[in-house]
């Protein structure tokens, strides 16, 4: 890198800028004036025939170090420091800075400059990673020239089984632009290993998951929700059950970052849905240490353990969203975490009245965990638009649907006790004379999502660990950006 003049004028230009071309005669005149002049060219080392001291700055190092935002930029340096600067062509300012009275007489009085190549999209973080100070505390993992970074991530056990995006400083810096929070803020101790989890570590894992920077607030919000003690994250990571954090996003951020709540909302194909859930799981794996076969003891696991994240359909204003029903005001973005497994499809193409459909859905919901197990697992019901329309025609909203489902899900204990119906599994025999609800009232969540056609809904069973309703709870938190 060519050193900057200690005293004199420094000008940063690019050939591709008409204003820089315009000031060429001015630069030649300045050179003749006797004060040392240094011209850094961002794109063409032969910027000007008549100027001797043109420095090749195609790697943009000096442009980055000088914090150049537009070209041309004229800087006066004195005793090794910047004394003053002006950007673009402004005759009076150039004259004032150079103290050359007749400078640029033949030029217009003013012409704005062009954007510096050093601030083009993507360049800032790349230049900071290369020439700037990177404050990160996570250790660097050097690579050999022959090593493929994606294979290194596999070899070091950082992956969930799918390729990860290599977490370079440039990408991490870019990811952190997605939040106003400081890279070194600790969001909590991540179980099961209970290590401090910083925003930096979350950003690294979000890079690997394939997130865009604007998804980072949702990832952070989801992790903060997961760290609320009632979410029981440690147990969820270690359980032999299928469950994983299911992430439901509400509020304006869902639309802003392009989340899917329509066709195939629970499926593949949407970057935000796929990578937010994946980022959360990578943090749990890498920072928390929830590695399958280690702390993660899931007997069978589930595809949802890669990622299970979607947004709620809030297009119908009469519908009380999940977040609103859990105390978050309308218009505030929020994330709800549910300890769920996979998706159990539910078909009912015959019901036309709300009462019929509620009873029918209850039959499907009875299957969660086991048809004879009650008050032990929560459930998430994802109502499709066509099923919701049947409730809507009867004037039912969230409260009515929930109430009728809870009623239809309450059964005589003698049908459910161990041994009843010739099935050993079941509830405690002492409850034979009770009416037993399938779920705790707060343990049945209802969300709207899905494409316009299809009299189907989805049931997502919860973790079979909810004997005490206060011990294991879904968690909703506002998302702070």
């Amino acid at each position, binding site marked *: 890198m060519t050193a900057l003049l200690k005293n004199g004028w420094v000008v940063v230009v690019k*050939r591709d800028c008409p204003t820089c071309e315009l000031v060429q005669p001015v630069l030649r005149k300045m050179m003749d004036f006797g004060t040392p002049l240094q011209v850094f060219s961002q*794109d*063409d*080392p032969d910027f000007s025939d008549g100027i001797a001291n043109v420095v090749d700055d*195609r*790697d*943009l190092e000096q442009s980055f170090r000088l914090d150049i935002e537009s070209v041309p930029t004229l800087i006066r340096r004195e005793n090794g420091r910047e004394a003053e600067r002006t950007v673009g062509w402004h005759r009076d300012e150039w004259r004032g800075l150079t103290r050359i009275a007749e400078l640029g007489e033949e030029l217009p009085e003013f012409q704005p400059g062009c954007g510096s190549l050093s601030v083009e999209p993507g*360049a800032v973080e*790349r*230049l900071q*990673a*290369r020439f700037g100070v990177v404050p*990160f505390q*996570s*250790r*660097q*993992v*050097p*690579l*050999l*020239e022959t*090593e493929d*970074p994606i294979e*290194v*991530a596999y*070899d*070091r056990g*950082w992956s969930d089984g799918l390729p990860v995006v*290599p*977490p*370079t*400083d*440039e990408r*991490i810096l870019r990811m952190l632009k997605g939040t106003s929070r400081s890279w070194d803020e600790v969001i909590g101790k*991540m179980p099961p*290993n209970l*290590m401090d989890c910083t925003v*930096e*570590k979350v950003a*690294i*894992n979000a890079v*690997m998951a394939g997130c865009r920077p604007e998804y980072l607030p949702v990832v952070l919000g989801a992790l903060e929700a997961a760290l609320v003690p009632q979410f029981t994250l440690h147990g969820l990571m270690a359980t032999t059950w299928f469950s994983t954090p299911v992430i439901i996003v509400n509020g304006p951020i869902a639309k802003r970052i392009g989340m899917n709540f329509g066709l195939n909302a629970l499926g593949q194909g949407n970057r935000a849905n796929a990578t937010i859930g994946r980022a959360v799981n*990578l943090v749990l794996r*890498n*920072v*928390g*240490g929830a590695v399958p076969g280690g702390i993660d003891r899931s007997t069978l696991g589930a595809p949802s353990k890669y990622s299970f994240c979607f947004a709620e359909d809030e297009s119908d204003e009469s519908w009380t969203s999940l977040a609103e029903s859990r105390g978050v005001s309308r218009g505030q973005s929020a994330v709800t975490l549910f300890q769920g497994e996979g998706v159990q499809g539910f078909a009912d193409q015959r019901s036309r009245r709300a009462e019929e459909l509620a009873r029918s859905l209850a039959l499907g919901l009875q299957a969660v965990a086991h048809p004879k197990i009650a008050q032990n697992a929560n459930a998430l019901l994802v109502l499709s638009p066509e099923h919701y329309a049947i409730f809507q025609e009867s004037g039912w909203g969230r409260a009515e649907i929930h109430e009728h489902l809870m009623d239809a899900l309450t059964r005589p204990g003698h049908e459910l006790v161990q041994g009843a119906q010739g099935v050993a599994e079941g509830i405690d025999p002492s409850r034979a004379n009770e009416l037993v609800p399938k779920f705790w009232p707060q343990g049945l969540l209802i969300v709207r999502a899905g494409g316009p056609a299809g009299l189907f809904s989805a049931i997502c069973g919860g973790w079979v660990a909810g004997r005490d309703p206060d011990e294991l709870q879904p968690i909703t938190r506002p998302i702070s950006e």
Partner: protein
Amino acid sequence: MTQTNCNPSPVLFLNNPNWRCLCPPWPHPLRDPTAEFTPLLRERQTSPESLDGKTIALLDIGKARSREFLDRLEQQFHGQGLLTRRYAKPTNTKIAPLEVVQSIATEADVVISALSD
């Protein structure tokens, strides 16, 4: 001037003679996404305390007298009642073919890679 390992690909800029890669020097180091419980240099897998009941793979790396050396080793292992299986690389100049590595990984517990001229 032009590096070839950068992103975006320099192919996009071939028409611009003034283009220069802005990437940090290759290869870009990665940041560790973990809680950093394990050393940066990965530790070797520890050797088993005993070979009893283990299947020992004897890998001929393809040098001229590897077979002789492995025959002698095999004799000694068999003398101690230990199980062995023989594998071979086609040539010492290249890494073992995938099927050889996979066979050893699935059929044996430990491997001795012989180097003998």
